[in-house]
């Protein structure tokens, strides 16, 4: 694994019964660059994320992060190793306030599980949680129950939770899905800001967003990698044009 590689996959494969959802994917995702994974529906993008995060076991292949093969590890162990993700269908801790949502993520990151001290007493944790909530722009909803948030705000909360785990690699699954233009702009700016210090890989359908911020693009189709490269590379690629490119999809 060379320096400058955020995550290295070789031969990663997953079958569901007769269907091969991910077919021998081999790719080095770049560090210090914003990577984007694009492709038509059913290309296997989210399944790939699920494999990386350990939510489903890979049938074959290696996923190397920071010198360690992640295949076979449990999801919470992979988070501890420094990979965080957001989900395609946004989901957070609905019955808890925004503040508590982020607090538990910070507490977990700092391995604090003290059973007899009140949560409030951990000032450092609250301070860090406040920082993150500010960064994603949710301060106005600090005390609100997560279940009352708008869809766009839930996405931001998910982002906050992912950041609280102090990841070195952030996997974002359709981060602006379901957002209006203003929210999209804000979120994209936040992601750009984050990508300066954390490696990011995002799955996205919104081509405008991808062409705007992505440095390195991976095109998937039918479980395999169709093409990789910069925006210029893939727009020029005839295979990609044939398989995928059309008018930019919005949601």
């Amino acid at each position, binding site marked *: 694994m060379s320096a400058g590689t955020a995550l290295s996959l070789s031969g990663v494969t997953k079958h569901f019964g007769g269907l091969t959802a991910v077919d021998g994917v081999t790719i080095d995702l770049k560090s210090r660059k914003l990577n984007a994974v694009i492709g038509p529906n059913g290309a296997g993008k989210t399944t790939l994320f699920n494999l990386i*995060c350990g*939510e489903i076991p890979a049938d074959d292949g290696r996923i190397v992060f920071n010198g360690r093969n992640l295949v076979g590890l*449990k*999801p*919470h162990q992979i*988070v*501890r190793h420094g990979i*965080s*993700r957001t*989900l395609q269908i946004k*989901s*957070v*801790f*609905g*019955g*808890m*306030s925004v503040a*508590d949502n982020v*607090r*538990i*993520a910070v*507490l*977990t*990151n700092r391995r*604090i*599980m*003290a*059973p*007899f*001290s*009140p*949560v*409030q007493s*951990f000032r450092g944790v609250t301070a860090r949680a406040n920082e993150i909530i500010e960064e994603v722009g949710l301060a106005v*909803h600090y*005390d*609100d*129950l997560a*279940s*009352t948030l708008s869809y766009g705000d839930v996405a931001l909360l998910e982002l906050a*939770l*992912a950041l*609280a*785990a102090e990841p070195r690699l952030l996997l974002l699954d359709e981060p602006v899905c379901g957002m209006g233009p203003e929210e999209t702009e804000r979120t994209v700016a936040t992601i750009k800001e984050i990508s300066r210090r954390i490696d990011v890989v995002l799955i996205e359908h919104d081509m405008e967003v991808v062409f705007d911020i992505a440095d390195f693009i991976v095109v998937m189709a039918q479980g395999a990698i169709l093409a990789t490269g910069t925006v210029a590379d893939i727009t020029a690629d005839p295979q990609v044009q044939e398989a995928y490119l059309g008018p930019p999809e919005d949601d």
Partner: protein
Amino acid sequence: MTAAYARALAIAVLIVALLAVPFVLPAFGATFWVSIATEILIWSLLAASVNLLLGYVGLLSFGQALYFGIGMYGVALSINAWNVGFWPALAIGIVAASVMALLTGVFAVRLTWHYFAIITVVFSLIFYFAAMSMKGVTGGDDGVSFSPPPVLKLGELELTLVDATTQYYVVLGVVLACYVLTALIVNSPLGLAFKAIRENDRRAALIGINVYRTRLIAFVIAGALAGTSGALFAFFGRYASASYMFYHVSGEAVVWAIVGGAGSLLGPLFGAGALIVFRELVSTLWEHYLIAVGAITICVVMFAPRGLAGAWNDALRLAFTRIPDEPARRDAFDRRNASEGGEAAAIIEEKR
């Protein structure tokens, strides 16, 4: 006067009332009710063990009677075999129950939803039948009796359980200690982890929580609570019996927890209190009061799944919080005070 102040005041009143029971009730000619109050306190711990798992972690256990029974037998057998004192016997009962919870929890906690409920019953049945079969040790249904050692022996002064008032205060002390510990846990980082798992266990794993281990910890704590209940009950009845390990006992505890309000700290006390008082009052009038209890259970699930505590919290909110007039602030107010209707479990969000 805010809702939080009112709540604190209510708890203070409750504690004073509980402390005054052995003096107030006999004044009304109801000495017998001191005994009932003692029973309510003891059983409320079993309901609390169900409540911890259901209301805070989102796991419905239908087998807490097993740990209750182990607590009972821990006390009875250790006193009969080794002549230990009151407090050591109590400790043995609690530790034995916790160990059993650990051994069974390692397996049970791997399952969720209905399968978890089923396996908790299965485990309790296995040990129930084992206890019934080992009649020599456990006395089966008839059980094993013992004479409880004194609670305190300082030279000439001796406090024993024979005196109903002493018994009440000892039980009250232990039970209050358990509630205080539970309150601390629930408001701690561990408690927040419980809630996160209850809300969304997939998300919990994705922020790095070891869901299995956290559930196991909760299961053992719940086992300890149930064991404490059983140990106290053994002292109360001066005996231990395998019949208390049967799933009917577990089921009753679930009913108390639900009626009291799952997810609230004092819900188990009110649930157990309400239904035991109901039993005492109605059973003298109508032999088949269980029909009413069954009906109440069904009605609570249908109409008031957040139980008594839910109704109490709603009343507080109604009485003590002033609703802002401007629409924008009203919106924010509603958001802050909204609470989950309740898929997985009835929860009461305790706000700061």
